[in-house]
């Protein structure tokens, strides 16, 4: 597995119904980590919404996967993949906590930098 690249972004925590209103430019994929949390890729600030907690996030790294790499990664996934696109799946990849963001034409394997070495070692 090649070295991962930094995946900077913004984490936003707030009430579910508030986060449902997050609107971002199309080049900023929005990953819904939980009902009360989203991660917006890239340089983005959701200004003017006081009820949310918004923090720069520099702790993620990841891989934008080719179709071949995606197939390889999926060999190491034990859980069912969502059918719709785009979709975020979260769970263990080769035993490492990770996230998979799947779109029609691309996929992102996202992991905390603290775990990246484990994933690199386990995905030969």
């Amino acid at each position, binding site marked *: 597995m090649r070295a991962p690249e930094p995946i900077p972004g913004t984490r936003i925590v707030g009430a579910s119904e508030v986060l449902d209103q997050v609107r971002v430019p199309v080049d900023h994929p929005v990953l819904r980590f939980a009902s009360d949390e989203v991660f917006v890729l890239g340089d983005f600030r959701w200004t003017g919404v006081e009820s949310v907690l918004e923090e720069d996030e520099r702790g993620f790294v990841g891989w934008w996967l080719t179709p071949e790499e995606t197939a390889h990664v999926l060999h190491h996934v034990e859980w*069912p993949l969502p059918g719709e696109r785009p979709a975020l799946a979260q769970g263990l990849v080769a035993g*490492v906590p990770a996230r998979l963001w799947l779109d029609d034409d691309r996929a992102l394997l996202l992991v905390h*930098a*603290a775990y990246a*070495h484990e994933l690199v070692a386990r995905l030969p």
Partner: protein
Amino acid sequence: MSPSGRFLLDGMAQTFEPGDTIAMAVVRAGGHPGHGGTLCLAGDCGSCVARVDGIAYVRTCLTPAHEGLAVERHPADGPPGWAEAPASRTIEVHHAETDVAVIGGGPAGRAAAEEARQAGRSVELLDGASGDEVVAIYAGPTVIVRRADGMRHLRARDVIVATGTAEIQPVGPGSRLEGLLTARAARRLHEAGVDLGRAVAIGPPPEGVPCTPLAGELVRLEGEGRVAAVVTRSADGELRSACDTVILDLGRSPRDVLSRMADDLPVTVVGSAAEAYPLPAPPTAGVVCPCVGTTVEDLEGVWERGFREVELVKRASLAGTGTCQGSVCLPHVRAWIAARAGEPPPPFTARPASRQITLAEAAADVHLDAFRRTPLHDEHVAAGARMDRFGGWWRPWHYGDHLAEYRAVREAVSLGDVSTLGKFVVAGPDAVEFLQRLYPTDVATIRPGRSRYALLLNERGHVIDDGMICRETDDRFVLTFTTGGAGNAEAWMRDWLETWGLDVRLMDRTMSLAAINVTGPRAAELLARAGLAEPPRFLQHARVELAGMACHVMRLSFTGEASFEIHHPVDRSVELWRGLLALGEDLGIRPHGLQALFALRLEKGHVIVGMDTELDTTPRRLGMDWAVNMEKPDFLGRSALARTSGQADHRRLVGLTMDGEAPMEGSTIWAGGAVIGHVTSAFASPTLDRAVMLGWQKRTPFPEQVEIDGRPASVTPPPFYDPEGARARA
């Protein structure tokens, strides 16, 4: 189909014909692939298992012979010993999903698969003859398949078992001789051109196989090693028939081992595997379970001891726990119990795996826990650190000289990587209310810019973690927790947030932020060189620009010296670490590992939750009542503490000192000739010139003088070092 050739059998050349399995080739040569017993040549029994290319318990009847194989029979009198492991290979696991998994490629399996397809469902047909050897069904249901290219874990919504039937094998005198075949095995061998010699048949003779049918029931098989004659009994009396081979068709039993390991799962059995078959006559003598060696006498023994339920008979006699998982013995055990209980019991449960798999196959795709690395991991390794696992992270234990690291903290300045601490942001209109309920300290009295050490208690008033509360604004806080306790602390907070329904946002920043502890009497001087001329005062914190990056600096002290915990983005941690080391070079700076940190904090008497505490440790037992504000109307654990505060307690954590070397942590504490507790932390302090310890006393009255390691020790209230705390506040 393999061409003819030779392989090694117990070190001797063994020829085979095209299409032969190993077992077939051995029988063709007049031998037996094991050490006697009926051969089914269908994978149902364990009579043919052998070590093949270093792997034991391989069913030779299912393994094609090919040039160069090395086959060793298992010992006749016990399990195979350890052998040099074959060259390791990585077993790949392929995960897949389907609506319906059909196991068995016979008519019933194919029909079930077609029916499911017609219903619009995705179907996987798993047929052993096509290379899909199903060895287990687990919850999910997940079907575990062994293939030539690795293991396949197939998750299915429904599983259909269509595996047909196995043939009943004989139990009685002589049933472990060579030369015994089931009817199906005889037909396969005949079709492969194997000469069976003078063959006789008990039961319906297999079509087309030259043999002499014998009337009546089987009485015994005679011979030395190999069968030489069979004795049958009919209305005309007993008849002894000389022979080279006995072909046995004694009935059928469902080949349902896979469904028997899948209770409560959506597994359906179809075809002949689902049918009921008459049980054989109850055995009266001989080996019932050839895999384990359980005899009829063994069954009688367990029955007499009161084990009369089929699962208990299995456990007590071990019948059904061997290579074939009861495929051979189950009908006989049921018949034997039926003869005593009046009716046949249900079949016993089967356990995965139904076929022997190697440890590599079982462990394929199973991973050790993933341990996290801080962004400074490579810096530590480059500095010669011995890394070890703590609380789910790799952390530096020392950098080669923990006493030098200790002295750097006490006398100069040192850096510690504390990125592993739990770090959370709590914000929102109800943030104060939430933290007031969560912590035993009065959070409302913490002013913005200030911080406070706090215990985290559960409802029973037991200490579950500790850390700092840093108030940033009226409604925003940063909390820290221990490295090992951060995950539980988050779950704990989220549970209570949901329960209380408060308007609060919680964000875990543990892996988003790194943290470096700058500690020592020259720490402030170092920070000034990095651009922070006025660092926060003791128990204050501030958002500052340090070495060109936005940092959150918290002034506290775990080491007993002035300490500044610098929280910063993980992607700039190496830059900050290197920068601080360079700036402090002439100050005698060096990093310290956990070994030094544990010693430094012990001199101050600071506890480590999980190391010095136990599961039911209260603040009172730690001597930390000062961390609890019982004037607050409510907080988690308050009612339990109020209820127990007036009761006598027989446990306390105390400070201890003694001359000489420190005892091992865990050493027993003695008083009056009895063990009264144990040491939780110990360190031979070079500063104090004696050993300092924390330890539990669990017997009252609490003695002031004790013995540890056969040496006298004294109870000494901590802190042992700088009791006024002047250095930490300097």
